[in-house]
């Protein structure tokens, strides 16, 4: 068998296009996946128009001065602002691609905020030619605006609570440069109660003062609760996330598992099916199997070589992606194991395809036609189709190596909390099954 292996390696060496593709493929895919999954530029450039005059950047609310520019700086924590003077300039920057988007802060924003009742509005401009890019800008600016809003809302709440306390407890209040002393509802209630005690029981003022005292008492009780209500309203809805079916795979890592498994599948299936079909295309098959090599030996050699080549490619690709995406390198031995079992499974599928096809071109076409739907089927989410169809999809997926290979890679790359043994055993069983199918196919076409 080693002479056959040497021969196939010689043939691979004489096929520079194929070998070139095998080397370039993992590098290109690793770069693409890495770039796609990395976070994009740390600080995207955003054109910024501040139409608020410098003198009007502060506004007064409830006697407290608020500097809006302090909250605007929240926006620039994760963007690099390109400051421009007009909206037209900002639009041009976005059109020219100099800025990813533009943020327009209108002149009346502080006036609206000063009312304490009206919402202020800012304008976000971005190119929508590319939905991914558009979504990215939208996400960045929305996220920053949410931070600024939260900080501003906290300040407004603080002022509101302070004012309510002043109303309740009394104290000093600054208005137009003058310090006013506010009595407060509690003290008002105490003064009224004291006055009531001094009045004769039949006094006609007593009835009116009693009504004022009841109002003060009611106001104290309810405004005391109002401070809690204001605090709650400043963060009206909290989101609780409850993941179902306990996998703990981050999206990035799962995308890596998919990319590596798909690549491994294509390289292994195409190589194994092509190399077996080549023996028939070159008419060497009949010469080999008349006692020189057993049919099972021939199949094992093809599976072994295809799996080895694809394994090397997939390991290189995973390491390449690891330069861009955070992977748990302490699990590296598990990657190797999962890739080896997956490569064997795909190799066996490849020789089954190669056994059914008489020519390399037919084998390659068949490999593509079979591999793509298998991969897509394995990725169909449970809610996308009816439960009956989903059961069929699961059964069909289980009959081919992609599904267990993806599960093995996912478990190997990420600590999903699931056992690696199950997908490995599944792959081993499929390897044996597809080898048996390939052996039958060879007998049929001998």
């Amino acid at each position, binding site marked *: 068998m080693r002479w056959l292996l040497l021969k196939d390696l010689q043939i691979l060496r*004489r096929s520079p296009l194929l070998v070139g593709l095998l080397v370039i493929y993992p590098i290109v895919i690793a770069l693409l996946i890495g770039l796609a999954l990395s976070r994009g530029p740390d600080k995207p450039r955003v054109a910024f128009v501040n139409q608020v005059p410098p003198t009007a950047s502060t506004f007064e609310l409830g006697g407290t001065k608020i500097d809006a520019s302090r909250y605007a700086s929240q926006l620039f924590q994760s963007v690099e602002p390109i400051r421009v003077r007009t909206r037209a300039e900002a639009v041009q920057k976005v059109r020219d691609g100099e800025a990813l988007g533009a943020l327009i802060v209108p002149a009346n924003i502080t006036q609206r905020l000063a009312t304490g009742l009206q919402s202020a509005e800012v304008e976000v401009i971005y190119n929508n030619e590319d939905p991914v890019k558009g979504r990215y800008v939208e996400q960045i600016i929305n996220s920053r605006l949410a931070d600024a809003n939260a900080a501003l809302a906290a300040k407004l709440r603080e002022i509101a609570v302070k004012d309510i306390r002043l109303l309740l407890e009394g104290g000093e209040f600054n208005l137009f440069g003058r310090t006013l002393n506010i009595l407060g509802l509690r003290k008002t209630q105490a003064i009224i109660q004291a006055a009531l005690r001094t009045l004769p029981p039949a006094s006609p003022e007593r009835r009116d003062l009693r009504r004022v005292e009841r109002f003060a008492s009611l106001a104290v009780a309810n405004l005391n609760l109002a401070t809690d209500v204001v605090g709650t309203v400043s963060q009206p809805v909290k989101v609780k996330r409850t993941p179902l079916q306990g996998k703990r795979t981050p999206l990035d890592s799962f995308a890596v598992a998919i990319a590596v498994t798909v690549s491994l599948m294509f390289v292994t299936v195409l190589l194994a099916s092509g190399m077996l079909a080549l023996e028939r295309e070159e*008419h060497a098959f*009949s010469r080999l*199997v008349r006692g020189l090599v057993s049919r099972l030996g021939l199949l094992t050699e093809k599976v072994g070589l295809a799996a080895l080549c694809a394994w090397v490619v997939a390991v290189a690709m995973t390491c390449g992606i690891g330069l861009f995406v955070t992977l748990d390198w302490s699990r590296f031995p598990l990657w190797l194991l999962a890739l080896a079992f997956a490569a064997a499974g795909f190799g066996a599928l490849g020789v089954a395809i190669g056994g059914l096809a008489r020519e390399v071109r037919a084998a390659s076409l068949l490999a593509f036609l079979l591999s793509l739907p298998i991969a897509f089927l394995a990725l169909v989410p449970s809610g996308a189709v009816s439960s009956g169809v989903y059961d069929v999809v699961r059964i069909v997926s289980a009959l081919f190596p992609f599904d267990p290979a993806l599960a093995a890679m996912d478990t190997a790359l990420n600590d999903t909390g699931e056992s690696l043994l199950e997908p490995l055993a599944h792959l081993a069983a499929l390897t044996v099954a597809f080898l048996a199918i390939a052996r039958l196919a060879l007998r049929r076409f001998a």
Partner: protein
Amino acid sequence: MAAPARTAAPGSALSARGLTRRFGDRVALRGVEFSVGAGELVAIIGPNGAGKTTLLSILAGIQAPDAGAVELPPGGVGWVPQQPALYSKLSVEENLRLFARLERVADPAAAVARMLEQAGLRERAHDEVGTLSGGNRQRVNIAIGLLADPAVLLLDEPSTALDPRQRERLWEFVGGLTERGTSIVYSTHIVQEAERYADRVLVLADGELIFTGTPRELEAESRASGVDFEAAFVRFLHERGH
């Protein structure tokens, strides 16, 4: 079920006894029996679908018969399939070396050198097979069949894809082999080649061996006069209902 192949009796390089092969309901061979002497050149002729390739495949050990047995010579048989069974990306020498190793030839390098010399391909030894002419590819194909120095060489329609000049050179090469004592069994559609080169012809029709003898005996059997060998052969088949 077929009996395993045994060593042929003394004086006979190869013999087949009662070979039968079925593909579903179709019977490809029915009780075919013959033997081949040492250094003999035997042609198997017959119409399309007569069972020629099936018979050679069984003799070569590629297929097993459903009934009957093949007795092989001590040196085994060499096999030359109809289409050159070569790796076009490998050179002539690399192809020969690969098959010498797979055949477990004692000294692969010496066997390769011998076959390059014998096939007249020494100067093309390092050329990729894909760049060779059809005639030279067929020479390499035959040389691979001879690597293990077999007592009998089986050739399946060796001259089909060759032009007249290449055919001439092929038969010169094959003739040299029989002079060295190698028995040759070949199938062909070109019946003139059987008349011209074969010591003996076997006529297969619908899986049955209907004639064994020299080309002249076949002409006599057809009772045709004043016609060439091909016409006599066709007449013979008609007379036998094929």
